[in-house]
């Protein structure tokens, strides 16, 4: 059938302004959600990811553009007719109903009652591994259990897709990782299409088939987790996904995606260009701490620099070395905890050309979590 080949959800030219003349919360959004995929909207708070989800659920109306489900416009369809399961950060369980009552709610409003409904509720409880807790009240459950109930409630009526708005944001880290595995298991077992919103990049990397990185109301990059992490499209993505050293530089020459740049301290290194630059352009070079190699002798790789250990920071399983470069500038490198270095040591450091990316200097904002 031609219809099933089309994406399940399509945002076409969607824009959202909360007041006329106000800055757009979401702008120029063209995004397709494929059947059966786990797509994560990742970004800092205020980047437009939650607004995007709320527009799809029908709780917000796009100011411009339209959203399509199965090729049909959602413009005039109210939330209760969209057949989407929504999981909220604060669970949003009905406090006056039992666990079973909560899960049966979407069945009751669809006219499913009696033994039929009871069987579905039991199956949903088993799916989230809460068998036997149907008679409990939500306030007698732990946070993790409540979110499992919310998940069961969002799945029991077999929605076309499931929307999750920071569902694990209120839970502690261990429990979060545990539930990530559960969500992924359920998604694979049922072949669910999930649109997931989070600001936690490691959660996005773990769960997703594809990630859309949001900033300032726009999608900065869309792709599989490894591409997003290893080949960031711009300085924002490079800074937001994991740690990155950001070094100010100017372009000397460029051939294809290879370029030579001069760092602020005068050192000349080779790097991978994310765009086409004319010589003399001010750029930012991004390199991850774990991709910096070091030794006492000059290194054989193409970008070799000399420096001195300024400071060591202990992180348990690894240490971070703040390296002051000869000629100026500094960066952070990551080494195993047992490596013998101390402040004041001389070091030879280097990195491979394909690990260092060059972006326009004015590109994107300056997100937290960067290395330098």
């Amino acid at each position: 059938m031609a219809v099933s080949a089309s994406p399940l959800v399509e945002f076409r030219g969607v824009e959202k302004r909360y007041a006329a003349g106000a800055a757009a919360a979401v702008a120029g959004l063209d995004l397709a959600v494929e059947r059966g995929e786990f797509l994560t909207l990742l970004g800092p708070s205020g980047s437009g990811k939650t607004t995007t989800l709320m527009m799809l659920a029908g709780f917000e109306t796009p100011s411009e553009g339209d959203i399509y489900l199965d090729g049909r416009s959602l413009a005039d369809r109210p939330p209760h007719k969209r057949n989407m399961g929504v999981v909220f950060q604060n669970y949003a369980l009905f406090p006056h109903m039992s666990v079973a009552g909560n899960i049966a709610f979407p069945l009751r409003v669809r006219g499913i009652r009696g033994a039929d409904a009871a069987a579905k509720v039991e199956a949903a409880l088993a799916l989230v591994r809460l068998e036997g807790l149907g008679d409990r009240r939500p306030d007698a459950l732990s946070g993790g259990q409540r979110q499992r109930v919310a998940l069961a409630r969002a799945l029991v009526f077999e929605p076309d897709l499931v929307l999750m708005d920071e569902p694990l944001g209120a839970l502690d880290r261990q429990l979060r990782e545990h539930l990530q595995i559960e969500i992924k298991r359920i998604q694979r077992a049922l072949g669910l299409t999930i649109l997931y919103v989070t600001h936690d990049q490691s959660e996005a990397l773990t769960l997703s088939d594809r990630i859309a990185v949001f900033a300032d109301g726009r999608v900065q990059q869309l792709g599989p987790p490894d591409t997003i992490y290893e080949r960031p499209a711009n300085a924002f993505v490079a800074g937001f996904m994991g740690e990155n050293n950001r070094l100010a530089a100017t372009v000397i020459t460029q051939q294809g995606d290879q370029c030579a740049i001069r760092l602020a301290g005068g050192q000349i290194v080779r790097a991978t260009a994310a765009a086409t630059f004319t010589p003399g352009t001010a750029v930012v070079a991004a390199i991850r701490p774990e991709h910096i190699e070091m030794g006492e002798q000059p290194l054989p790789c193409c970008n070799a620099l000399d420096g001195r250990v300024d400071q060591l920071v202990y992180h348990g399983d690894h240490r971070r070395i703040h390296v002051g470069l000869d000629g100026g500038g500094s960066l952070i490198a990551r080494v195993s905890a047992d490596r013998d270095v101390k402040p004041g040591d001389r070091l030879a450091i280097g990195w491979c050309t394909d690990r260092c990316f060059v972006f326009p200097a004015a590109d994107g904002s300056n997100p937290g979590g960067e290395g330098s």
Partner: protein
Amino acid sequence: MIAVRSRSGRLGRAALIAFCALVFAFLVLPILAVVPLSLNPGGFLVFPEGGLSLRWYRTLADSPQWTHAFGNSFKIAVATTAIATPLGTLAAIGLSHMRSRAKPVIVALISAPLVMPIVVVAVAFYFLFAPLGLVNGPVGLVIAHSALALPFVVIVVHASLSGLDPDLLRAAASLGAPPLTQLVRVLAPLAAPGIAAGAVFAFMTSFDETTVALFIAGPEQRTLPIQMFEGVREQISPAIAAAATLLIVASTLLLGTAELLRRRGERLRTGSAAPDVGA
């Protein structure tokens, strides 16, 4: 040094307690003074000297005038509650959904009967209702009392709704519940304690209202406060004190009920999570 400080601290504390006791006495004593008056076995409205009696309560129960007034007040208050509670609840639901800048204006309009001098409200109702034939009848009195009671219902229900997680209604919608089902199955049960408390306030507002009743009620709608008012003027009998005592008891019980309902509503909304051990 420490001893001196703690002695002055104790003194300050004793002074604070004494002051608070005085304030409470100032507030409560005049009201409670009516209780011993009602237990006076004699025929005058004075404090009892030797011996207490319930004879004036018996007089109340035996007097058709007083029982009629009780019945009138009760009927009018029930009708007022039946009108003001649903109207006020709907207004509160509408207000809680409102994001417009007109909201403070609407709240002010709804609360107008509360802040206006009651005699102005009474005169206004009188001149409005007289040409409509609504004075000297129960209908006009119920309408006027409903207007006075409505702001209380709106305020109490609105407060109980503002503590409600808006995601609950969104969750209900996403699960397939149309707006009316959201209202009936989710909003109403969670707001029920607030609505009930609002109903109690509406009942009390009407039950002890005097000024508007004096203007609008006909001889057939002589309510309890009017009966007491005229009783004081015409025949100063301890029966008035007995009626007043009954009113105090009723008000206290109703206020306590409203407070219990409010707490119950709060518990329902803010059940905290059990710890995540071994989840």
